[in-house]
């Protein structure tokens, strides 16, 4: 099963069109701004993650993130252990 790394808001759109519905998505860098789109489209929150440090830097807190889990780099590593291929979406 693939893991998708999303680095921008446009990246999330491109990813959502091309990912299997059960694939998890990690939003990082400016990708953390895309968590609002995830919530708006009512996608399953258990498949979405944001990188905690990048979200904190940008002021993306619980309000913007809802139930999407914030993960640290160790959890980022765990996600990559469990999935292949790993696909990056910058756009």
């Amino acid at each position: 099963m693939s893991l998708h790394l999303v680095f921008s808001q446009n990246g999330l759109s491109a990813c959502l069109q091309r990912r299997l519905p059960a694939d998890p998505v990690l939003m990082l860098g400016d990708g953390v701004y895309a968590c609002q789109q995830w919530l708006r489209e009512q996608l399953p929150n258990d498949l979405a993650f944001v990188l905690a440090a990048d979200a904190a830097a940008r002021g993306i807190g619980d309000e913007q993130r809802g139930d999407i889990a914030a993960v640290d780099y160790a959890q980022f590593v765990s996600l990559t252990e469990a999935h292949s291929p790993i696909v990056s979406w910058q756009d």
Partner: protein
Amino acid sequence: MKYALAVHGAPYSSNAAEHALSFIEALQACGHDIERVFFFHEGVYQGLNGQVTPQSLHDNALQARWAAVAAQGIELAVCIASGIKRGVVDSAEQERYDLPAATLHTDFTLVGLGQLIAAIDNADRYVEFPA
């Protein structure tokens, strides 16, 4: 597990280096191996040897962090085709093309694109940090 990594972004143009470095540090804490870090496209600028970290960012001196990675025997491989056209050259290329200076930091090495493919093929995972 064995990981192959690619960095596609230049310093200050993307978070590619910060992401890759923190990811590498976490990989090592988890006991994973890193086959090679490959710098492709504008990522080759990570290897320039004259970068002066602004004082305000001194906690985030990218080249000091790359040096720590290199010190553990992990190859920091700059794509030679992407590098020399952009002006990132080692002393061998400096001589070959009669250039004024070697501009590649000594922690990095110039290699062909084949080394990207070889690293990926030997690895269990490939993770790419875009521009």
